[in-house]
C-alpha cells in the first residue's frame, strides 16, 4: 500500500486525532486486503449507528471527542430506536440510552439522519462509475448493481473511517476487472407468471446468495420483469444469504446492457439453468414454521418505498388488520405519505408503521416467540436467530390477506 505524503501526515496526526485514527484503520484494512493505494470517494452510507453493545458507542464517541467530521455526504442506516414512534421499541433503559447516544454521535460526526436501509430511495443515488464507501449489505448490492456506483461491502467502523478521510482502499469492486460477471443464471425456463411474481425475487436472491457466494452473477430472462423494488428485494436476500455485493440483470442494470457487456466478452465460467424445483427448494430456505398459525406479519426489509406503501394501502382497500402488522419504512417515505393523505389511510387500517429501525435489529415484536409471516427474504433469514420467532414466507398479498382474516392465507399455485 502506497500512501501519499499527505495521507502519511494525516495518519501521524497532522489533521487531528480523529482523522489520524480513521486513516490508520482505512490504510491498515486496505493493506491487508491487497489495496495498492487509496482513492477519493463521492459519498458514504454508514451502518455503524446500530447499537450492538457499548463498545460501538465508545468508538463513535471517541471520534466525536477528537473532532471527527465526515468529509463527504454521508447518510445513516437504521439505529436501534424508532425516534418518530418512541414506544415501538422495548429496550431496557441502559440500552435505550446507549442506542440514542450512538445515533447522536453519528449525527455529531456530520452524517445525515436518514435512518434507513434504503438510502438509495431517500435521494442518495451516486452516479454510474463513481467510487463510494457504503455499508449495509442490501444497500451495497443495490448501489453496485442497480446504480452502477462502485463500493465494497464496507463493514461498521470502516464505513465511517472512509467517510472521515474521504478515501477508500482501491481493491475489490472499485476495480473494473472485478465487476464482470463470472456465473450466468438462466431463468428463461421458468414460467413468465413466476418471474412476474414479486415474491419470486427474494427467493431468487436467496438462491443466488447460497450458490454464488461472492462471485458476480448475471441473470438473464428478467428484462421485462425487473423493477427497482424487485431488484432491491433480490439484492437484500442475496446479500444476507451470501456475500453478494454486485449482481447484473442482463438488459436492465447499467453494466449489463447485453450478456457480452456483463461478461466483458468472455464466456461465463459456469451457467446454471434454474428449474421450478430449484426455486421451490430455495423457497423452503425462507421458512422455519409449519402449520397454519400466524401471530404477526412484518414487511419492509429493506425499508419500503413509497410505491410499496401505496400498494399496501391498495391491497387493504379500507379493511382493517386483525393481526399485528408491522410495515417498515424510512421517514422520507412517511413525509410523502403524509402529503398524499395515504398515511392516515394505512394507520386507520391498524398497520403499525415502524421508521428508523426494524424488528430484526431491535426488540419490537410482542413476546419472545411466535410465528411471523413476511414477504422479505432478509427478515425470513434473520428473524429466527435475532427474535426467536418462526417464519413463514409469502407474497405481500398473502401478508395482507392473512393479517386481515387472522389466519394463514396462501396460494400454492403461484409456485407451480
Amino acid at each position, binding site marked *: 500500500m502506497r500512501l501519499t505524503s499527505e495521507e502519511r501526515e494525516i495518519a501521524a496526526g497532522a489533521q487531528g486525532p480523529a482523522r489520524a*485514527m480513521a486513516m*490508520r*484503520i482505512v490504510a*491498515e*484494512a486496505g493493506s*491487508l*486486503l*491487497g489495496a495498492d493505494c487509496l482513492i477519493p470517494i463521492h459519498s458514504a452510507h454508514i*451502518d*455503524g449507528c*446500530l447499537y*450492538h*453493545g*457499548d*463498545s*460501538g458507542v*465508545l*468508538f463513535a464517541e*471517541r471520534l466525536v471527542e477528537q473532532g471527527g467530521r465526515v468529509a463527504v455526504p454521508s447518510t445513516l442506516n437504521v439505529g436501534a430506536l424508532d425516534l418518530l414512534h418512541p414506544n415501538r421499541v422495548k429496550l431496557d433503559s441502559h440500552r435505550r440510552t446507549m442506542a440514542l447516544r450512538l445515533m447522536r454521535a453519528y449525527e455529531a460526526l456530520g452524517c445525515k439522519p436518514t435512518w434507513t436501509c434504503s438510502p438509495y430511495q431517500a435521494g442518495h443515488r451516486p452516479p454510474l462509475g463513481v467510487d463510494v464507501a457504503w*455499508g*449495509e*449489505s442490501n444497500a*451495497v448490492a443495490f448501489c453496485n448493481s442497480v446504480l452502477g456506483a462502485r463500493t*465494497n*461491502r*464496507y*463493514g*461498521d*467502523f*470502516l*464505513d465511517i473511517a472512509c467517510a472521515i478521510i474521504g478515501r477508500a482502499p482501491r481493491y475489490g469492486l472499485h476495480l473494473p476487472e472485478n465487476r464482470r460477471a463470472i456465473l450466468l443464471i438462466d431463468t428463461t425456463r421458468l414460467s413468465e407468471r413466476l418471474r412476474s411474481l414479486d415474491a419470486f425475487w427474494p427467493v431468487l436472491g436467496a438462491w443466488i*446468495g447460497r450458490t454464488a*457466494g*461472492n462471485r458476480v452473477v448475471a441473470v438473464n430472462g428478467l428484462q421485462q420483469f425487473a423493477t427497482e423494488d424487485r431488484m432491491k428485494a433480490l439484492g437484500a436476500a442475496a*446479500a*444476507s*444469504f*451470501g*456475500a453478494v455485493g454486485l449482481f447484473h440483470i442482463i438488459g436492465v442494470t447499467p453494466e449489463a446492457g447485453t450478456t457480452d457487456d456483463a461478461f466483458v466478452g468472455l464466456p461465463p465460467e459456469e451457467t446454471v439453468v434454474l428449474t421450478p424445483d430449484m426455486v421451490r427448494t430455495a423457497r423452503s*430456505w425462507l421458512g*422455519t414454521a409449519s402449520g397454519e398459525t400466524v401471530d404477526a406479519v412484518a414487511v419492509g426489509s429493506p425499508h419500503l418505498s413509497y410505491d410499496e406503501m401505496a400498494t399496501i394501502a391498495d391491497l387493504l382497500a379500507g379493511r382493517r388488520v386483525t393481526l399485528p402488522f408491522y410495515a417498515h419504512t424510512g421517514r422520507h417515505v412517511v413525509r410523502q405519505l403524509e402529503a398524499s393523505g395515504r398515511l392516515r389511510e394505512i394507520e386507520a387500517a391498524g398497520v403499525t408503521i415502524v421508521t428508523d429501525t426494524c424488528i*430484526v435489529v431491535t426488540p419490537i415484536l410482542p413476546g419472545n416467540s411466535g410465528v411471523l409471516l413476511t414477504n422479505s427474504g432478509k427478515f425470513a*433469514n*434473520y428473524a*429466527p*436467530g*435475532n427474535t426467536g420467532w418462526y417464519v413463514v414466507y409469502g407474497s405481500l398479498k398473502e401478508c395482507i390477506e392473512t393479517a386481515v382474516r387472522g389466519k394463514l392465507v396462501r396460494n400454492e399455485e403461484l409456485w407451480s
Partner: protein
Amino acid sequence: MVLSTHAIAGRVLCPGSGQGPLLKLSAPLSFWGGVDPATGRIILDHHPERGLSIAGTVLAFEKPIGSSSSSSVLLELIHNGAAPAAILLGDLDAILIVGCLVAKELGLSAPPVLYIEEAHFSKLTGKWASVDNGAITIGCSLAPITSI
C-alpha cells in the same frame, strides 16, 4: 499428553497468538444475526453448529457472509471477553478484520486473524489449535498443546 500434531501456515491479517478448541464451521456464517454478541453462542437457525459457542475457540471459518454489522459484533465479543481465541479465514474479508483493528485502537486485545488458502483449509482437522503469528499447530487431543 499430545498424541500428534501437524502444522499449517497462514497469512497474518491481524497479528497475535491464541489457542483453544478448534471449531471449524461446516456452513457459512454471518456474525451479525448468527452469533450472540454477549455470549458468542451461534444462534442462526438451520446452522449446523447452532448452539455452540465460538468464545475461546480457534474459529475456522471458510466463508464469512452476510451483514456488514459483523465488525460491530466482533468488537462487542472482544469487549465482553467472548471472542474466539483466534480466527482462521478462508476468504479475505474486511468486515471481521476491521473489528480487530478498532479493538486495538480502543486499547482492547484482539484475537489473531489468519488467512488460510483453500488448499490448506481441509488440513484443519483436529481438536485443539494453537496460533502464533503465521503458524498454526493442530493437535488431535482435546487439550492445550504443550509441545510440538
